C-alpha cells in the first residue's frame, strides 16, 4: 500500500515541477519556504501575489510556486514588474532574483525603481557569484574572494546592497541570511505592506561554486559561517556593513529602513485625480 505524501504547503507549490533544480546545500529552498509562509501570513490575498524573476538559479524560484509567475529576461525583472504594477496596481508584485541578475546586468533598473520608490518588493538572494553559469564573479563578490573568473582572488570592490538601496530612497530595506528564516519571513510580510519600494537582501550559500572556492567545504559550513558571524544591528551605519568573509568581519543584519514616504503610484494617482479635477 502506498500513501500519497503531500507537502504541507502543497496549495502554494506546483507539485508537478518537483524535484527542483537546486544543488544540495543551496539556500534557495529556505527562501522559497520563507516566501510562501510570508504571503500566507501576510495581509495580502494569495491570488494578488505575482512573482517576477530574471535569469539564474534564484530566478527559477517563481516557477515552483502556485501563483501567477513570470520568468523574464536576464536583468529585466524589475523593469517588467514596473510595467505590470503600474498597469494593474491591485497586484502585489514581488521580484525575486539573484545578485548577478539584479545588480550586475540589472543594476540600472534597480537604481531607478528604488529612486522612483516604485511599489514593488524586491528580494535579492545573494550568493556572491553567478551560480548557474558555474561560479563566475560579479559585483557582489567580496574583494579577494575566489571565483571561476577570479582565480587569483577578486581585485574589485563589491556592492553593499542595503547601503545602496537606502541611499536611493527605498521605503524599506532589510538584510538576513538563510540561517534566519523566521526574521526573513517577517521582513517579507512587512515588505508586502509597504507602500513604495521594499528591498530585502538574503545571503545564501552556493556550495559547489563560491563555497567550494572560498574554504566552505559544503553548504552547512557556509551556514555555520552565517551563524557565527551574524549580528543584528538595525541602527548600524549602513556605510560600514559591506561583506568581507576573509577577515572575520561581522555580517550585519536587520531591518535598517522602514519609512513612510510617497510611492510612485501614490504620486501617479494624485496626478490623475488632479487632471480629472481640471476637466470637470
Amino acid at each position, binding site marked *: 500500500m502506498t500513501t500519497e505524501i503531500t507537502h504541507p504547503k502543497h496549495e502554494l507549490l*506546483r507539485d508537478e*515541477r518537483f524535484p527542483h533544480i537546486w544543488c544540495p546545500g543551496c539556500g534557495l529552498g529556505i527562501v522559497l519556504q520563507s516566501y510562501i509562509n510570508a504571503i500566507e501570513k501576510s495581509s495580502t490575498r494569495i*491570488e*494578488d501575489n*505575482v512573482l*517576477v524573476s530574471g*535569469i539564474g538559479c534564484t530566478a527559477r524560484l*517563481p*516557477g515552483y510556486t*502556485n*501563483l*501567477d*509567475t*513570470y*520568468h*523574464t*529576461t536576464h*536583468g*529585466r525583472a524589475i*523593469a*517588467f*514588474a*514596473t*510595467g*505590470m*504594477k*503600474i*498597469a*494593474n496596481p*491591485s*497586484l502585489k508584485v514581488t521580484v525575486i532574483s539573484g545578485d548577478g541578475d539584479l545588480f550586475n546586468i540589472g543594476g*540600472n*533598473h534597480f*537604481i*531607478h525603481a528604488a529612486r522612483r520608490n516604485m511599489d514593488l518588493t524586491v528580494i535579492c538572494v545573494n550568493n556572491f557569484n553567478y551560480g548557474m553559469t558555474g561560479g563566475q564573479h560579479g559585483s557582489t563578490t567580496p574583494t579577494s574572494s575566489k571565483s571561476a573568473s577570479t582565480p587569483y582572488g577578486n581585485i574589485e570592490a563589491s556592492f553593499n546592497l542595503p547601503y545602496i538601496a537606502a541611499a536611493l530612497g527605498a521605503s524599506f530595506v532589510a538584510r538576513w541570511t538563510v540561517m534566519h528564516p523566521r526574521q526573513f519571513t517577517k521582513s517579507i510580510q512587512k515588505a508586502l505592506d509597504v507602500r513604495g519600494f521594499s528591498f530585502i537582501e538574503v545571503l545564501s550559500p552556493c556550495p559547489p561554486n563560491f563555497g567550494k572556492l572560498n574554504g566552505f567545504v559544503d553548504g552547512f559550513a557556509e551556514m555555520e559561517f552565517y551563524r557565527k558571524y551574524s549580528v543584528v544591528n538595525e541602527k548600524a551605519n549602513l556605510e560600514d556593513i559591506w561583506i568581507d568573509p576573509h577577515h572575520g568581519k561581522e555580517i550585519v543584519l536587520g531591518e535598517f529602513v522602514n519609512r513612510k514616504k510617497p510611492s510612485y503610484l501614490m504620486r*501617479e494617482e494624485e*496626478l*490623475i485625480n488632479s*487632471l480629472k479635477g481640471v*476637466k470637470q
Partner: protein
Amino acid sequence: MNGLLSPGKYFADGNFASAEGAIMAGCRFFAGYPITPSSEVLERMSRRLPEIGGHFIEMEDEIGSMAAIVGASNAGLKSMTATSGPGFSLMQENLGLGIVTETPTVVLDEMRAGPSTGIPTRVGQGDVMQARWGSHGDYAPITYAPNSVQESFDLAIEAFNAAEMYRQPVIIATDQVIGHLSESLVVKPPEEYTIVQRLIRKKREEDSKVFSFSDDFIPMFIPGTGFKGNVDSLTHDERGYPSNEASVEKEMLEHLIGKIKKNEDKIIKYEEYETEDAEVVIVAYGITSRAAKHAVKLARKDGRKVGLFRPITLWPFPEAKIRNLGERIRLFIVPEINYGQYSHPVREYGCRETREIHFPPGEIPDYKIILKNIEEVFP
C-alpha cells in the same frame, strides 16, 4: 468627452498621428526613452495618457521600456513604446521576450541614419532587416511601414489590432521624414474604427493550458484573478513550463511561426500602382515610395511601362505577390535609404533580375534618381 481625438481634419505630423492612432486603438500604457526623431510620440503620450486614465512612464533606457510594455500588457493593458535605431537595437532582447511569451504590444521604430548613433535628425531605412531578424532565434514578425501621416494614424490602429489577434509584439517601421512631415489627417468618429478588444481568460479550467500550440492562440490570462499561470522566457510547453527538449522547442516554434504564416493573407497589405501591364516594377516603402510613385507617373507619361509595388506590411514578406510579379515582368527596381536590404527577399522570391538603388541615409530620396534608373532600363 471620451479623451479620444475629436473627429475631423487635422494638419499634423506623423508623430502626432502615431500617438493619437495608438490611443484610438486603446493604448493605455506607454513606456519609452527619449530619442530623436521619435521623442514627440513620447511627449504626446506623457500629456495624453494621464488625462484619459492611462499610464505613462519614462524609463531609464530602451531595454527597460520594452520590458515594461511587455509587463504592462501581461497585466492587461494595451501598451506601446516608440524609438529609433539605437533604441530599437536595445529593445531586441525583450522584443524576443514578447514573442516567446505571446504578448501583444506595439513598437514604433522611426528609422534614422545609422549605423550606431548615425545622424539622429536625418532619415534612414536601415532597420528593415533588423525588424525581420533583430532578436535572436526564430520568429515571424509583423511590421508595418506607413508612408503618410494618414497611414501613421490608421496603421497604428491596425498594428494594435494585429498584436491582439496574433498575440505578439508588432513593429511599426516608420521613418524620420514621415514622423516629422506635416500634412492632412482625417480622423473618423471612434465607432467607425474596428478595434480588436483583448480576450481574457479569467478562470482556469481543470488542466487548462497557459498556451496552445494547436490553436492559433488561446486568450491570455491576467494575473490576480486566481489563474496561477507560469509565463516563461525559456522554451516552454503549453503549460508554460520550461523544457530542454528539442521536441518542445519544435512544437513551440512551429506554433509561433505557424500562427503568422497561416494568417499571412489576412495580415499582408500592399498598394499596387500601374503594375497591370508593367515590364518593370519598383518595390518601395515608406518615404521612398512617394518619390518612386512620382517617378512612375513621369515615366508613364513617356510611355514607359513601369509600375510600383508598395508593401504596407514589410513583414511577413509578400512572397506570393512578388513571385507572381516576377513571373510576368523583366526587372525589379528596389530603391531604399540603405545599401540594399529589402532588395534581398525581392530578388529571392521574385526570381527576376533586381536592380538596387542605394540612397545614402541622411537624404530624402530624389525622384529624379529613380526616374533616371527607369530610363536606363528602357532602351
